[in-house]
């Protein structure tokens, strides 16, 4: 049994890697800049958390200051959310957060920009430490376990949740929702 355990693990890990690769291939054709619809889908998906946020919440738009495209996307998100975004019982107020300043951020949700690359692991650390969910359109960050939920609205709404990342950040979704999305 002890000899077979690693084999099982390898099979499991291999399967998950294959699954994530397949998902990446499926999503590859859908790469595009973040859109207003992406943000709306993400905001609406929050309603399917087991403990959905209510009222006014601060959304931290996490970007890498040394990556122009990340800064650009953060600005774009800031503009989209300017004046607040009210979806259901949630009223979201954006605040930009340099990825170097995650430790001092006082927010209830991370919105991770693309192009952060390996710095994404710092978001994962903050997510776990502060039990704050993270959403992104950068599916790679979800596959790497740095962000809990990835969202794409075009050409078809796709939502991917990393179960391990969700568990570590204390984020749990309603069972109905889990049956409608892709989990890895």
């Amino acid at each position: 049994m002890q000899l077979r355990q690693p084999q099982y693990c390898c099979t499991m890990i291999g399967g998950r890697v294959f699954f994530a690769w397949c998902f990446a291939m499926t999503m590859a054709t859908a790469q595009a800049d973040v859109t207003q619809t992406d943000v709306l889908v993400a905001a609406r998906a929050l309603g399917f958390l087991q403990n959905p946020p209510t009222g006014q919440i601060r959304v931290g738009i996490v970007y890498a200051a040394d990556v122009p495209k990340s800064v650009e996307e953060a600005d774009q998100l800031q503009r989209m959310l300017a004046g607040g975004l009210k979806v259901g019982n949630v009223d979201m107020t954006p605040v930009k957060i340099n990825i170097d300043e995650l430790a001092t951020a006082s927010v209830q949700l991370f919105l991770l920009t693309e192009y952060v690359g390996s710095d994404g692991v710092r978001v994962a650390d903050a997510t776990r430490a502060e039990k704050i969910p993270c959403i992104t359109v950068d599916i790679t960050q979800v596959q790497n376990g740095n962000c809990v939920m990835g969202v794409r609205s075009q050409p078809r709404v796709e939502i991917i949740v990393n179960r391990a990342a969700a568990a570590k950040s204390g984020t749990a979704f309603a069972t109905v929702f889990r049956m409608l999305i892709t989990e890895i």
Partner: protein
Amino acid sequence: MDSSRIGFRRLLKVGSSTNPSRWAPSFAMRLLHRSFRLQPWAIVLPLLFTASPVCAQSIDYGASEQVFGEPITSSVTGSPQRSSDVPSTTEIITADEIRRSGAYDIPGVLRHVAGIDVLQWHSDDADVAVRGYDQPYSPSLLVLIDGRQVYADYYGYTPWSALPIELADIRQIEVVKGPNSALFGFNAVGGVINIITFNPLYDHVNSASFSSGTQGLADGSIVSTFKLGDAGGVRISAGARSDDDFSVSESALGAGTQSDNRAELNVLAVVRLGRNVVSDFEATTSSSNEPELSSGYITYDTHYDTKSVKLQVAGDTAIGLVQASAYTNWISFQGSSTIPEFPNVQLDNQVTVTQLQDVFKVGSHHTLRAAVEYRHNTMPTLANIGQISYDVASVTGMWDWTATPSLAMTNAIRLDDFTLERNGPVPAGYGLTNAEWNGRALREPSFNSGLVWRPGAADTFRLTAARGVQLPSLADLGGLLVSSPLGIVSGIPTLNPVIVMNYELGWDRTLPSTGGRFRLSVYHETLQNILAFEAGSDYSAGLISIPANIGDSEATGLELSLDGRFRRYWRWGASYTPEIIRDSFEPGFTLATTAVNDAQTTPVHVVNLNLGWARGRWETQGYLRYESAFYGIERSAEPVINGEVLTPIPDYVSVDSRIAYKLSDRFTLSLSGQNLLSAQQLQTSGLEVERRVFLSLQSRP
């Protein structure tokens, strides 16, 4: 989770026998029978105390649709799925589409849908079938409202006017094409229509409407929801309609002598029993009068009284989505024959259904469903001599495996264990005894298997196979019992169920450039043991007319549809659904003796077109339907029992339309028309369908 899986496996360990139609019930099935028979409602109560406070909500269709940009359904596998992911050719008609259709009843909405056949016999009497095989008292389409069966088991059909529902109640109509017995059990063989209503816990609906038009139409309805804070909500719906039947024209099927009218009331209360448990209580009642064509091609003036109560508890628990429900339907039917030689009919049918299911995920890629169901169905025989009843205990399992993000496989299997019973006296000269019924048992498996492959974001391919089982109606099984000077007309206990096998290949492609969808489905279906109502006789038992299994049939068809939008304000759709049916009946069974000829009574070519436009306060929608020539069935004047003949129905084009103007944010005035191209048009072997025009005022905030 493990325990439920083990339990399910044990339940599947059924007894063995060399005679599949006479298998003795296994211990598990007997246990199921006994447990539920003693306390049919007891299944609901334990959940109130066992649901763990993890997370729970019944499906919030509106919120889910907003997230995913498409309707959600659980009518295909029993687990919630996006409509584009289901392993079945399914159409979901949204509330918006219902409103734009201009129809005042559900068959009027369905007649615009690809693959659906509607035979309009009288002003308010229509039979609906999926993919052909439509006939009076169409038995192969199972119809439910929020999962509660409204299909009438006593004769095996759906009395549409007696359904306790208003169009404004409906969030979406889910049309599942092909057999789905593995989820819904017996009679879901041609297709399933599950009508999903607005949930007062999540939805806010306050609607009132009044319509008036030709044929003396007067139709009014009110639907209102009330919130009970965060604790729940209540929806109350009521409606009434009266209108005249089509003018009498040449028809050997007879014409009704009464006007149509209906009234209904339904109340749905949804209460949160905790953060994670929701309970629904529904009570309905309806009453209707209408001329109606029976399965024997005789027009009856009918009167229906229906009642139902339903209790459901659903919880999102540590072991998944657990749902327990129990309901009872009562239906009372009175029919006055318009042909003097045929007797009037009065019967009462009661069905109680108890269900328990758990839908859960194992890991990331496996969704499973395990369910048990028990139903008890009873009716007195027509002459009120004795009583026929049956019990069905069922176990169901479903496994949905997302093998890769682009490939999913679903397998569902169900085993129905049926036992028939008769008690009470038998008429003089009756060659059958109650023992003939009380020894009758059936155990039938059904399955649905599907492979869904999504090679890219735009394309979805489906490969499905299914086995469905259509049970003989209670009337077929002995509820029909009429003594006449010539002998006795009776149902019999030895009929076999109709077995339907379906194989299908489907391709959907979303068309972002037009905001629409292309759909292609090819299917082949076989039917074994087709039932005919008065096809046989058993003179040795003194029975001059009995139902019989008359043979087989097969259908091969195609569904081709395309829809989209253009120039911002326009929407359109087109479908072409050719179907060829071949009958293979046993020697001696002819049209004249069976009143069945599926091959020639189904149009081969059907085309549906629709075009809509909406801008500002104006909105309009038009529908065109073409059916190629086919045959209807007429009852010849002599002899009165049997002797049916075919009568040609020329090909025809019908047009429905609606134009609406929003008077204010609250009020909309609309003018609707059906069959606008001619004052009278032959669409069936019954009365000619008339042009209808009506004006509606609707209030909806």
